[in-house]
């Protein structure tokens, strides 16, 4: 009797479970992938969205930053991309080339929440490939100068540099005044962001003919490269990799170098890692350019809807919600990620933060990297070649010629695909 009863109970609960499952299938279950820490913060933003859209169930999945690119590609290959996902904006060209993403122009045109003119234009443009919009910027990221106010003053300067000449003069003075004890700046030779930012300031594309060939032998790129390599040759910057300097925050605190070219996450790191007595001693400054304040790299993350999604409308509603200025302000408070919309920067928290002012200014001066799927490979090659020039193995001309030759080889397949596509649609 007991067994029969237990069986009946089990059967009943299975029925309940089955109906429950089918019910949740009737509602939209929205798969949302996030990269890194954003996943935790977004959980705190979701309750309000759930109240407004009780019919949509959002399932957030966190993927680790280091594996994100591979995981997204594998998911594409296996046909298992989610309904919405966060994506690095430098990956957008790649996933657009894969035809993996849903174009969003029509939805933006009808949206009341998303106004393209409110976004920093360069960051918005990184999501536009061949005229179609594939992503909505979620947060922005760029590189600029972190510097030691006290040590710069000690070397005789009251303000950070505005252009390359001034910057170099300040670093020369720092070296001389400290009798070689301090370096001017730390620019790890195995990171490409620094040279890329300097090269983008020249406003000459790094690839030519629609991303078919390298353009590293242009006079402008060579000027940026020789300025960059020159900093090491003059002895203003040590030829260290970020492996040799395993703790740049501590070295910055010790005054081993005065300038550090890095991104917004380091505001939090310096606040956390430097003692309270040193918190007044550092600040941020916009990136100096060849003639006056210059551009910097336009990084960031975007929200995209994969083509394969079954719930595109619900996915779009989630993106609209996450793009509202007040939601972005809360997102900043939770995580420190910088909002991509000008109106979101109007909050007092963002306005009163004096280390953020330089970022606000820099965000109006951004330059995008060339939108080709091979870019990651090309930019790594660029840095490896530049490192050889720093080590004295190559001259500037040789380095630029090698970069072009290698970039051309990496772009060979792209050229053949493009020429075939042109034949198909004349």
């Amino acid at each position, binding site marked *: 009797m007991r067994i029969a009863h237990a069986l009946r109970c089990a059967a009943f609960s299975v029925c309940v479970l089955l109906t429950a499952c089918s019910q949740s299938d009737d509602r939209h279950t929205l798969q949302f992938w996030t990269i890194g820490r954003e996943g935790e913060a977004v959980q705190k933003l979701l309750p309000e969205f759930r109240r407004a859209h009780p019919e949509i169930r959002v399932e957030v999945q966190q993927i680790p930053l280091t594996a994100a690119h591979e995981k997204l590609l594998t998911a594409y290959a296996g046909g298992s991309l989610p309904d919405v996902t966060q994506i690095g904006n430098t990956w957008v060209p790649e996933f657009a080339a894969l035809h993996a993403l849903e174009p969003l122009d029509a939805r933006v045109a009808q949206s009341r929440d998303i106004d393209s003119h409110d976004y920093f234009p360069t960051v918005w443009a990184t999501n536009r490939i061949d005229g179609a919009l594939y992503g909505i910027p979620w947060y922005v990221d760029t590189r600029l100068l972190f510097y030691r106010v006290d040590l710069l003053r000690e070397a005789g300067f009251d303000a950070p540099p505005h252009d390359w000449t001034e910057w170099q003069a300040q670093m020369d003075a720092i070296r001389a005044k400290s009798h070689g004890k301090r370096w001017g700046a730390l620019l790890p*030779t195995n990171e490409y962001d620094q040279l890329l930012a300097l090269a983008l300031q020249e406003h000459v594309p790094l690839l030519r003919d629609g991303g078919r060939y390298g353009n590293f032998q242009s006079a402008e790129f060579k000027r940026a490269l020789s300025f960059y390599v020159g900093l090491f040759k003059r002895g203003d910057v040590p030829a260290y990799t970020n492996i040799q300097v395993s703790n740049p925050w501590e070295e910055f605190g010790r005054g081993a170098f005065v300038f550090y070219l890095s991104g917004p996450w380091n505001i939090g790191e310096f606040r956390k890692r430097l003692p309270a007595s040193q918190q007044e001693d550092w600040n941020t400054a916009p990136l100096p350019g060849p003639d006056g304040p210059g551009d910097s790299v336009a990084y960031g993350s975007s929200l995209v809807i994969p083509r394969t999604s079954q719930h595109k409308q619900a996915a779009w509603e989630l993106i609209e919600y996450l793009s509202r200025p007040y939601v972005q302000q809360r997102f900043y408070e939770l995580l420190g990620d910088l909002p991509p919309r000008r109106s979101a920067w109007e909050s007092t928290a963002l306005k009163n933060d004096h280390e953020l002012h330089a970022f606000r200014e820099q965000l109006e001066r951004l330059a995008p990297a060339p939108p080709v799927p091979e870019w990651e490979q090309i930019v790594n090659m660029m840095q490896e070649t530049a490192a*050889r020039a720093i080590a004295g*193995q190559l001259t500037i001309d040789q380095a630029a010629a090698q970069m072009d030759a290698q970039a051309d080889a990496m772009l060979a*397949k792209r050229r053949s695909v493009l020429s075939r596509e042109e034949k198909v649609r004349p």
Partner: protein
Amino acid sequence: MNRSRAAWLFLAPALLVLAVFFLVPVIAGLLLSLTDYDLYALADIHNLRFVGLHNYWELLHRPLFWAALGHTLYFVIAGVPLSIAVSLGAALLLNSPFARARAFFRTALFAPVVTTVVAVAVIWRYLFNPKYGVVNFVLVHLGVHPVDWLGDPHWAMPMIILFAVWKNFGYNMIILLAGLQAIPAELYEAARIDGASVWRQFRHITWPMLTPILLLVCILTVSGYFQLFAEPYVITEGGPLQSTVSVLYLMYDEGFKYWNMGTASAVAFLLFVVMFAATALMWRAGEAREAVA
């Protein structure tokens, strides 16, 4: 007739597993290396082209491939003898009749083998830090000029070799120790009665009795060391100036970072050919030695 059928029947499960999980992927990899499979082909299969031996041709004209092969050979040629010498030395010490606390030392010397590469590599990065590392601290106290282990392209590979030797010698040590213990004690006793010195005992008893095991250890170590990847990946990221990029590292970059699967498969096959040749050579040498003996 019936017996051989029964034998095949018993072998079938193993052969099936081998075919599905080894033979098929290898053939697929070989076919892949003859195409230009990449991101564009993933997007649209019409972008896939059969390119014959073009990937191989291209690789053989790429300085980085030769550099990577050079680094790998350097690692194997310097690392394998050093590693086996250390293993043999440790095994002899453990096997010595004068050894005390044998179980403790056996465990302690084997411990590096079971640690995780990533965790240990982080510690090694600190040990070899040019400014604060304890290794340079000791060097300076000995009056030697400090070495920029992580930044000087000439010193990064020696550091990787030291790391690999330290990490791996325990494994071979256990195998060699088993080999030493299998040598009959009577042989040594007879030698002692004849008045043979310790060195002569080693030269004429230990060494010849151990040769088959040494050959096995050599082959295992060589094929393991050719697959150098994790150590530079974690400690130096291939740098400085790509001086620690190994063949497998190049394959990883091509295949998993940039999705050039065609090229990556070609790299894998070239490495396979090199390893096959090296192992075959060692077998030959071993057999020739036996024939002489």
